[in-house]
């Protein structure tokens, strides 16, 4: 493992920022301070973190309805994210997108997505674009196990493969497509097996081990940048929360949840860093305090931001047409 201490600490920081952002989002949602609904990434932090640690700002990602972690790992600003969750004018999408549609084109974030499986083909388009323009950009397509039963998954892998596009397909296999266990929604154990059909490498990795995810993603990103085409990486992981906040999760038993809580990716990285003298407990405590302060500040920024003026509802549909307002 050629990871510098600095990189490890950076990855810890990212995972912790995701965890704290999501924990706060859950609280705010429960208190009725965030409208709509939210799908939280708690438990899956190692995937977005390990993958995005290999990316540049100019690289692309497509995300999902469970997208907060991807956005944070790709460099998203917590202030604008919270502001978006609160539906404020200062949010990433001026309050027009909400939790499921956060995007930041400046950081190559081509959007979270409310349609399961819709990001796959957009990622292929971004990969085609990178190749067409002869850049070294890559596109990472994040998706859950549930989406691998959509036709788009197969269309996208096929197209990326025949054109040798710089796309990394990252499956976050959290064992459930909403309420349906993987064993009931597909007749395979490893989504990565499906790579065979598209003549690309299919890799299974412990998705709760950020170092393993980092390594697998590094190889795939290198391949993509070198013009060797796409890779399918399957990260075995688990969402600690329900599909959405408020999901009673009657479909999974407590033993299973307990077992996976033992594999929480964040304590695992902390243990590794302490064992290898990467950081001291005091240093971790300091990082945690910094993140807590950042989160508090971001929430304050969001809550103090104005709601958008109602007239904004008819703007931003087209670049050159503003629709009629209600008279």
């Amino acid at each position, binding site marked *: 493992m050629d990871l510098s201490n600095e990189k490890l600490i950076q990855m810890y920081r990212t995972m912790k920022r995701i965890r704290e952002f999501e924990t706060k989002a859950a609280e705010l949602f429960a208190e009725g301070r965030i409208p709509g609904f939210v799908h939280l990434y708690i438990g899956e932090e190692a995937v977005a973190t390990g993958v995005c640690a290999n990316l540049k700002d100019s690289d*692309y990602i*497509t995300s999902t309805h469970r997208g907060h972690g991807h956005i944070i790992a790709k460099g998203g600003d917590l202030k604008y994210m919270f502001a978006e969750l609160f539906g404020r004018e200062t*949010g*990433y*999408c*001026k*309050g*027009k*997108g909400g939790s499921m*549609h956060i*995007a*930041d*084109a400046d950081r190559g974030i*081509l*959007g979270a*997505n*409310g*349609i399961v499986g*819709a990001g*796959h*083909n*957009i*990622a*292929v*388009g*971004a*990969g*085609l*674009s*990178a190749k*067409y*323009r002869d850049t070294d950009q890559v*596109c990472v397509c994040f998706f859950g196990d549930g989406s691998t039963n959509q*036709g*788009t998954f197969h*269309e*996208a892998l*096929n*197209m990326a493969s*025949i054109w040798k596009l710089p796309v990394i397909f990252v499956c976050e296999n959290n064992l459930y497509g909403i309420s349906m266990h993987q064993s009931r929604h597909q007749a395979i154990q490893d989504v990565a097996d499906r790579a065979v059909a598209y003549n690309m490498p299919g890799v299974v990795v412990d998705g709760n081990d950020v170092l393993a995810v980092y390594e697998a993603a590094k190889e795939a990103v290198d391949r993509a940048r070198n013009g060797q085409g796409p890779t399918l990486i399957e990260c075995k992981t688990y969402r600690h929360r329900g599909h959405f906040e408020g999901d009673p999760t009657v479909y999974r038993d407590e033993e299973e949840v307990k077992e996976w809580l033992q594999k929480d990716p964040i304590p695992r990285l902390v243990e590794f860093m302490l064992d290898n003298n990467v950081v001291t407990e005091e240093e971790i405590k300091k990082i945690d305090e910094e993140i807590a302060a950042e989160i508090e500040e971001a929430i304050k920024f969001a809550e103090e931001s104005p709601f958008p003026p109602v007239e904004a509802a008819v*703007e*931003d*549909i*087209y*670049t*050159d*047409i503003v*629709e009629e307002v209600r008279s």
Partner: protein
Amino acid sequence: MMKTITYSEAIREGMRKRMRENPNVFILGEDVGEFGGCFGVTGDLVKEFGEKRVRDTPISEGAIVGCAVGAASTGLRPIAELMFIDFVTVGMDQLVNQAAKMRYMFGGKISLPMVVRMPTGAGSRAAAQHSQSLEAWLTHVPGLKVVYPSTPQDAYGLILSAIDDDNPVVFLEHKLLYAMSGEVDLDIEPIPLGLADVKREGEDVTIIATAKMVHEALAAAEELAKEGIEAEVVDPRSLFPLDKETIFKSVEKTNRVVIATEETKRGSYAGELAAIIAEECFDYLDAPITRVCCLDTPIPFSPVLEDYVVPDSKDIIDAVKKLL
């Protein structure tokens, strides 16, 4: 430079012009390369621009549209060809939920300069899954622009504008017009989206028609003229944005409106046009607005049945006479 070319060639020459000017414009779709396109529209473009810019795709309409979305959001200007408008059903999520909504959902911080070309319409004995007119579905969606030319010159001028547009534009092409020839000025300025054209002037009735129905309307107008009825034929050319001004001006003059499209009547764009006129131009109407559309059936195969279901100039003449 004036040249006599077909509707199909006009679209191709428009694409060629923009591809020569801008290396970021490219075409993708099924059989658009060496095969030249299902209806021959892309023709020889692959010879001039190569396979990188005239890109054959697998039969994956969702991926064709989705790929265009991804490419458009990252700096390119794709032109996606769907073999038949009927196949947009397979790519509908990418068009409706992604292309049309991304700019809005992302707070205006992204633009999607992409064109999706769709051969449309009945009359080629292709039956129910290769003959539809789905403009109502497409114009219904905020975030899309929808264009539907009726002549080679309009096809040329409008494809230039569609490619230049920074928003997703659905470019409908009527299959039976592909072979139609006409004089085309290849040096014209692009025809702005949202500019209707009065194809024939008249005082007695306004016939608003799209694509092939424009020609049916013109034929009807010639027949009506023999009986002393002068019809004005207005072609919106772009369904959204819509040039209401030209339409209202005509209605104010004639006080009678027939709307002729090839869609099934129920839930049609023709109904939308009728509603707009009723809401905003009611005081000028001397008769009910009448729609001449397809019967509310899937398009049947047998020529006898298809010709019965799809409207033509005779149906327009009948409709006009009922209003007078």
